């Protein structure tokens, strides 16, 4: 059996009104793009809590895309502006903690930009594929630090 190639898992958080429709347009236009993306549809980018991104990494994502309406086009008038503020501080925080900023990408894709959706997905998949699996995060264990030395040794009295 040939060695299996690493296929990154990309989670895309999309706004219902623009990017989701844009992705839909790419589909109806029969445009081909890499199938590594899992889409989560939300009403607005303004409703995306940074915890969603942390959770996605925890559950095995290698890369994340957050995408919504272009500035000024928000269905709720200002949701994407608020989101932009949030990512402006959240992104450097993750970078400061040692997470490669290329793993979290942001874009504005309107309902008419099926082509841009295809390009964006292809580019993020290629970038993350080059970075490799996000092992640092996925390997973080969930049982606490290992106990070493005397503390781990069985007691003599048993």
């Amino acid at each position, binding site marked *: 059996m040939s060695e299996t190639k690493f296929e990154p898992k990309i989670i895309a958080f999309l706004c219902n009104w623009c990017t989701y429709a844009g992705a839909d347009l790419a589909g109806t236009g029969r445009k081909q793009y890499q199938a590594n993306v899992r889409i989560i549809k939300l009403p607005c980018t303004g409703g995306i809590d940074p*915890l969603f991104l942390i959770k996605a990494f*925890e559950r095995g994502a290698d890369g994340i895309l957050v995408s919504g309406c272009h500035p000024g086009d928000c269905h709720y008038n200002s949701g994407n502006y608020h989101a932009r503020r949030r990512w402006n501080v959240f992104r450097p925080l993750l970078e*400061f903690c040692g997470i490669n900023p290329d793993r979290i990408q*942001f874009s504005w894709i309107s309902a008419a930009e099926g082509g841009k959706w295809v390009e964006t997905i292809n580019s993020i998949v290629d970038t993350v594929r080059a970075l490799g699996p996000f092992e640092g995060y996925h390997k973080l264990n969930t049982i606490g630090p290992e106990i070493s030395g005397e503390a781990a040794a069985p007691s003599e009295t048993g």
Partner: protein
Amino acid sequence: MIEELRKKAEELLKNGTVKVVFGYGEGSTPERTRPVFITKPEDVNKLTWNKYCVYNLTTYLKRQETRKLGKPALILKGCDARTIIVLLKECQIKREDVYIIGVTCDGVGDPLATKCEACDVHTPLIYDDLVGEKRENKEVPFEERYAELDEYEKLGEKEKWEFWQKQFEKCIKCYACSNICPLCFCDRCIVEKNQPQWIDPSAHPRGNLSWNVTRAYHLAGRCINCEECQRVCPVDIPLNLLNKKLAKEAEKSFNYRPGYNIDDELAMSTYKEDDDQDFFK
């Protein structure tokens, strides 16, 4: 200065302006102080003031136990008084519900606390009464204020990751950092919500990362750098580095510094149409 403080406290309690005075009292050793809550005018001699008064007493504004005591007067340094401005702005207190006894301060802690190194609020920006000689608040340049971050920002991606993993690994999820924080005032914290369980409650590296990043993020554009989280951390995680990084980003991107001007819009509850979006595709 101590005498002046005591006199002021006595006067306020006697004429009924306030029901309680939050201040610093002598601790178990000369190098320590502890918070005291004076409700009777005859107890004012318990109040003290020295360079070991590092705590930020505004944290007691969020506690049920201390809220029950009635309208408080707080003894606040310049940095602590900034918390009041943020709390007012976030509608957590009303101005008339607190009485602020501002104290001028040349820095606390021995050796000098990190937060005091680039202090630009020796005289509080908000107070009802000022005790001590008024000092000039000199502006400190941006680079100097965030100089502490330089050595960490220089590290490579992998080194950063390893550094923080080593720190977060120590976390025992005692939540002392959020308990002490005067600005962590949610009745129900995100870690207490379990449907869905956003943050794993047990202390393992994966859950610790989510907790520490989220705690810091919730203070983005709000933290006034009192360093209390870092001081109380039983396992010495340099939590304030994360807070400071966020403060730096908020200042760089939105030109906003919390707790300086009551008329400023809160950084994270507003937006500008020309906010930076270079990282958007």
